[in-house]
């Protein structure tokens, strides 16, 4: 084993890595925002009294949670192509990641909804709040507050999983790494560096979610419950 590591040749390429990291963050951001929307709607759907709606939401969650992201990405990529629709690799990657994380978010938020005590909802009904008002004020925000740590972990995992989109040549961090290592023949140094960048990105995301939590859930801060 001849250890002569040369990180200088890799670090020289920092603009490419920066671009890749920014694209990774963009993918994570888009999928997080849209995934949260899908998650809330999916969770409401799963609790719907309409059997068809809750059935469809259940099938969506189970289908996504029991198949690999890699296969989902290929299905979206080739599925859209076979419909004759042409999108950029970035758009396909964002769509596939959103569909994927939406299912996990649905499950997490549903668990949050289920944890709201029945009495709270009955009290809200007693106050003659409409169904939408009950969901918004009594169920949704307290539920999201409760599962916020799980959501944070899930979205950080999503950011890491976005590396898989390099397989359909979305130019995110891992794809940049593949390109740089084939160019410099310094595979070990490249992937070590990229691993460090991913760790930094996940720390940035965790810090971001922590700050967001302070703003969105002031009650938690007041009560002193740790995020």
């Amino acid at each position, binding site marked *: 084993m001849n250890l002569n590591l040369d990180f200088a040749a890799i670090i020289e390429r920092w603009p490419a890595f920066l671009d890749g990291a920014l694209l990774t963050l963009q993918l994570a951001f888009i999928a997080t925002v849209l995934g949260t929307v899908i998650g809330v709607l999916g969770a409401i759907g799963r609790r719907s009294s309409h059997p068809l709606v809750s059935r469809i939401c259940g099938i969506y969650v189970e289908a996504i949670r029991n*198949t690999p992201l890699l*296969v989902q990405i*290929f299905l979206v990529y080739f599925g859209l192509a076979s419909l004759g629709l042409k999108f950029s690799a970035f758009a396909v990657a964002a769509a596939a990641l959103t569909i994927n994380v939406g299912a996990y978010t649905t499950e997490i938020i549903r668990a949050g909804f289920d944890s709201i005590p029945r009495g709270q909802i009955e009290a809200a009904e007693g106050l003659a709040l409409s169904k939408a008002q009950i969901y918004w004020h009594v169920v949704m925000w307290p539920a999201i507050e409760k599962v916020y740590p799980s959501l944070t972990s899930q979205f950080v995992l999503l950011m890491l999983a976005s590396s898989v989109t390099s397989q359909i040549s979305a130019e995110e961090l891992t794809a940049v790494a593949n390109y740089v290592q084939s160019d410099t023949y310094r*595979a070990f140094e490249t992937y070590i560096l990229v691993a460090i960048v991913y760790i930094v990105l996940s720390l940035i995301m965790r810090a971001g979610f922590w700050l967001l939590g302070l703003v969105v859930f002031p009650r938690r801060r007041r009560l002193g419950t740790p995020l």
Partner: protein
Amino acid sequence: MGGSLNANHLMFLGYGALWTIGLSLIGLIGGGIAGFIIALCRISPNRIVRLLSAGYVQLIQGTPLLVIMFLTYFGLPTLGVTVSPLTAAGASLTIYVGAYLGEIWRGSIESVPKPQWEAAEGLGLSRAQRMIKVILPQAMRIATPPTVGFMVQIIKNTSLASVVGFVELARSGQIINNSLFEPFLIYTIIAVIYFALCYPISRISRRLEMRSGPARLSLGTA
């Protein structure tokens, strides 16, 4: 391009599915051993051991499995160590699964009530005896549902071994697609096979969770 999907292709997919199961077992056993060691290190009385194992978990949980795969498969040869796709995939999964199972099991061990430790100590059992005879049997019951749930993640994550050229289910699908060029059909079949492998385990995990009280949220993508 040429021909249509026939029995040979399905045989090839079946063979790939067997390798997916094999690789999952390698990941489960290797990662199980690594995870057990990590879990014990995380609750070690020695502060340095605790810090090192916590650092390991943080590092691995902050890195995508794909990058770990690339690091072992493409990175090690540049240092003069050649690895086969199977070795690279098996080693990567062991490293990755070890960190996650280690955390799950540490949580299980720590959720055994404190008086159990104290009572065992009061009976004059040594630390090893307390662990083996009192704590671990109880921790195992707590750990079973999340561990079974995590097996689904392992199966799904073996699909990433395809990027280093290991011919498991996803890779065998890619190979067939290269000759038939019917991606949508083939990847749908692949997805169905993965679903058939994972869904029963998800169900078992959920049933175990319901039996053993409060549900733990299972996390994970890929």
